[in-house]
C-alpha cells in the first residue's frame, strides 16, 4: 500500500500491544459503542519517542510528578535538556535579577542531574533554543519521532522527522515511559509550486501558507510541505517553514529528506559516521511519500506569486504583502469582521494605511523561526554599512551559542554592532517576553519570530512578523520597506 512520509514514520513507531488492544475494546464496550466499527478509526496507540527535548519552563512540574509517584526517567540517553525560554541574553555572568527565573533554571539543573539527563546549561557553548540545538548537533534525523514541551517542536520536521509539541503532563508521560498515547492525525499536503521572486524567503512562504489556510486550517492534521519551492530551500529555510506549522493549527509539519538534508547533516557531532552513515542514508532515502500516496487534504500555492509578507493583526494569518494596505473590516468576510476590528484597535492601525507607512520602535532578529546562521547572514547582508534609524532599538539574538560563535567568526556581529544593533547571548528572548527583553506598552516591533498575539512580546506591545531581511531593512528605514525592490528602497 502506498504511504505518505508521515504514515511511514508513524507506523514505524507504534508499539503494538495485545493488552492495549484489549483495553481499547473494553473502553469501546463500556461507552456503549462496541458495535461501532467506525470508532476503531479513533484508535489510540502508544507511539515510541526517539528523542525527548526538555527545557526549564514546561518540565519542572513533570519531574515533580515523577518524584511524587516514585517513578524514574526511562531513557535519559534519549533525553536532552537546555535552558532557553527565560535566560537573560545579557549580563549572564551577573546574578540573575529575576529570582523566579533563577529558581526555574536551578530546578532544571537539579532535575536533570538527579535523573542523569544531559543538560546544555547556561554557560555551555551548545546552549540555545531547543529547536536550534537539536538539528545543530545532529540529534535531529530523518524518520525519528521527536517531542518537546514546546509547540514549535514542529521545526524538526524539516528533516523528515515526526516532531510535535506536547503539554507538561505528556512530558511526564514520556519521561516515565518513552511513549505517548496518540490518535493518528489526518494528512495534508501543501505544495508550493514555481520559483520564488527576489527578496522572498522561507518566512514569506510560510506566512503566505498560513494566510491561505488560516490559523485553524491545520487542526488535527500533519502537513507535508512539497513542491519545487520547498525542494529549492536550504535546510534552515525548511526549518523556518516547519516551525510555523503550529501557527496554521497543524499537529506537525514535515518535509521529505533529500540530498540537501544529508549534506546539512553530514559530519555533525551526533550524525552517524562511516558505514553507519551510509546505511542511514540508504534507509532515509526510503522515507519520502510514495508516488501514489494520498492525503486527506491537498492545497497548492503558486510560489511565484508570493511577495514579502508582513502581519498587521494579532494572529499570524492576518498578513499582507509589503505593497499592501491595512485591511478595511467591511471588506473581509462577516465571520472575521469582529476579530479584524479587535485586531486593528489593539494594533492601533487605520484601515487603508499602506504597510510601508507603518513606523516601528523595535526590531527583533532571532527565535526558533529565524535565529540560525543563514538568517543572521541574510539580515547582515541588507545592512551594508547603513545605520539603524533614529529612535529605533534593534537587537539580534542568535539561536544558540554556536550560532553566535559562527556569526562572530564571520564578522557579522561587527556589521550589526556598527549599524547600531545590540548583539546578545542565545535564547528565546523577545519572541515570547519571558525574560527582560520585552516591548513597552504601545511599542511596535518588526520581529522575525512566530507569534503576533496580543501582548506576546510584552503587555500592550504590538508585533509585526516578517523575514530577517525585511526586519533588517525596517530597522534601517524606521518603517516597513520592500527588500525585493533592491537597495534603492532602503535609505542611505
Amino acid at each position, binding site marked *: 500500500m502506498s504511504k505518505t512520509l508521515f504514515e511511514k514514520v508513524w507506523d514505524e513507531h507504534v508499539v503494538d500491544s495485545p493488552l492495549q488492544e484489549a*483495553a481499547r475494546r473494553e473502553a469501546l464496550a463500556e461507552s456503549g459503542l462496541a458495535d461501532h466499527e467506525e470508532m476503531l478509526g479513533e484508535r489510540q496507540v*502508544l507511539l515510541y519517542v526517539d*528523542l525527548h527535548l526538555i527545557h526549564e519552563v514546561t518540565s519542572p512540574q513533570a519531574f515533580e510528578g515523577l518524584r511524587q509517584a516514585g517513578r524514574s526517567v526511562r531513557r535519559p540517553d534519549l533525553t536532552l535538556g537546555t535552558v532557553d525560554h527565560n535566560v537573560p541574553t545579557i549580563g549572564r555572568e551577573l546574578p540573575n535579577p529575576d529570582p523566579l*527565573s533563577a529558581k526555574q533554571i536551578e530546578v532544571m539543573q537539579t532535575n536533570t542531574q538527579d535523573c542523569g*539527563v544531559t543538560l546544555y546549561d547556561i554557560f555551555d557553548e551548545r546552549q540555545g533554543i531547543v529547536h536550534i540545538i537539536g538539528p545543530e548537533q545532529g540529534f535531529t534525523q530523518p524518520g525519528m519521532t521527536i517531542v518537546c514541551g514546546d509547540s514549535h517542536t514542529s521545526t524538526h520536521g524539516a528533516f523528515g522527522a515526526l516532531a510535535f509539541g506536547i*503539554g507538561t503532563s*505528556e512530558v511526564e508521560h514520556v519521561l516515565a515511559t518513552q511513549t505517548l498515547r496518540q490518535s493518528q492525525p489526518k494528512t495534508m499536503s501543501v505544495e508550493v509550486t514555481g520559483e520564488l521572486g527576489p527578496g522572498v524567503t522561507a518566512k514569506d512562504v510560510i506566512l503566505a501558507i498560513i494566510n491561505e489556510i488560516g490559523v485553524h486550517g491545520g487542526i488535527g492534521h500533519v502537513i507535508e510541505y512539497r513542491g519545487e519551492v520547498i525542494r529549492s530551500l536550504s535546510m534552515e529555510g525548511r526549518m523556518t517553514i516547519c516551525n510555523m506549522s503550529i501557527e496554521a493549527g497543524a499537529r506537525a509539519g514535515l518535509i521529505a529528506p533529500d540530498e540537501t538534508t544529508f549534506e546539512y547533516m553530514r559530519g555533525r557531532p551526533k550524525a552517524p559516521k562511516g558505514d553507519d552513515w551510509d546505511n542511514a542514508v540508504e534507509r532515509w532515502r526510503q522515507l519520502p511519500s510514495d508516488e501514489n500516496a494520498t492525503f486527506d487534504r491537498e492545497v497548492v500555492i503558486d510560489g511565484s506569486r508570493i511577495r514579502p509578507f508582513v502581519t498587521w493583526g494579532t494572529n499570524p494569518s492576518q498578513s499582507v504583502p509589503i505593497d499592501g494596505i491595512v485591511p478595511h473590516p467591511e471588506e473581509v468576510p462577516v465571520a472575521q469582521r469582529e476579530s479584524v476590528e479587535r485586531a486593528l484597535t489593539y494594533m492601533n492601525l487605520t484601515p487603508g494605511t499602506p504597510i510601508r507607512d507603518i513606523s516601528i520602535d523595535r526590531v527583533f532578529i532571532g527565535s526558533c523561526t529565524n535565529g540560525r546562521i543563514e538568517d543572521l547572514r541574510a539580515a547582515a547582508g541588507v545592512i551594508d554599512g547603513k545605520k539603524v534609524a533614529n529612535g529605533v532599538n534593534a537587537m539580534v539574538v542568535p539561536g544558540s551559542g554556536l550560532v553566535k560563535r559562527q556569526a562572530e567568526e564571520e564578522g557579522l556581529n561587527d556589521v550589526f554592532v556598527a549599524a547600531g544593533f545590540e548583539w546578545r547571548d542565545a535564547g528565546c528572548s523577545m519572541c515570547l517576553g519571558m525574560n527582560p527583553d520585552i516591548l513597552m506598552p504601545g511599542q511596535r516591533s518588526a520581529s522575525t519570530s512566530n507569534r503576533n*498575539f496580543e501582548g506576546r512580546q510584552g503587555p500592550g506591545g504590538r508585533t509585526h512578523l516578517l523575514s530577517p531581511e525585511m526586519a533588517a531593512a525596517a530597522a534601517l528605514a524606521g518603517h516597513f520597506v520592500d527588500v525585493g525592490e533592491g537597495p534603492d528602497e532602503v535609505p542611505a
Partner: protein
Amino acid sequence: MRQVSFVRGKAVPLNRANVDTDQIIPAKHLKRVDRTGYGPHAFEAWREDPDFVLNNPAYEGANILLTRENFGSGSSREHAVWALNGIGIEALVGVSFADIFKTNCFQSGLLTVELPPEDVDYLMSLSESNPDAEIEVDLGNQTVATIDGDWSVGFEIDPFIKSRLQKGQDDISMTLEYSADIDEFESQRAHPLPNTAVE
C-alpha cells in the same frame, strides 16, 4: 486525575475565535514550578477591560466557558489549563480547540466539547441574554442540554478518552502496564538512535 461524569452550571460566553494560550496565561507567569496558583493571572490583559465578560458579576461562579473556533491555540503551555482550573472552569464548549490544548485539558479532567457553530450560537445567546441560565454537559450520554430540558444536542468524543475521564485514570500508570511491550519494541529496533548521554 479527577473523575468526570457531568458538569452543570452557569456558562460564561467568551464570544471570540482563536483565543490563544498567551491570553489565557501570559508567559511572564510561567516561571513558577508548581501546577497551581495561575488562576489570579488568567486572561490578565483582557481583565483590565471593565467590559470584559469575565469581569461581569452576573457570570460569577460560572463553571462552563463558551467559546468559538480554535480556542487554546499557540503555545503548548499546560499552565493555560491550570489557569482555567484556577478560576473554576470545569468544561469548555466551543466550535473547535487547538490540538495540544485539547490533550492538555484531558490530562486535568477539563472537559472540551465541540459543537457545530449554530449550537454554539444558541448557547452564546442563551448565556448572553440570561446569565443565570444553567446548562449541563453529560459525558456518559455525550450530550449538552439546557437545564429545563428544552434543548439538547449530542457531541462526539474518543471512547478511550471518555472512559479515562469517567474513571479518572492516570495515563502513566496505564501505560506502565505495557512496559513489557515497550521493552520488546526497544529490543527490536534495527538501528541505533542518537545518544544524548555520550559527549
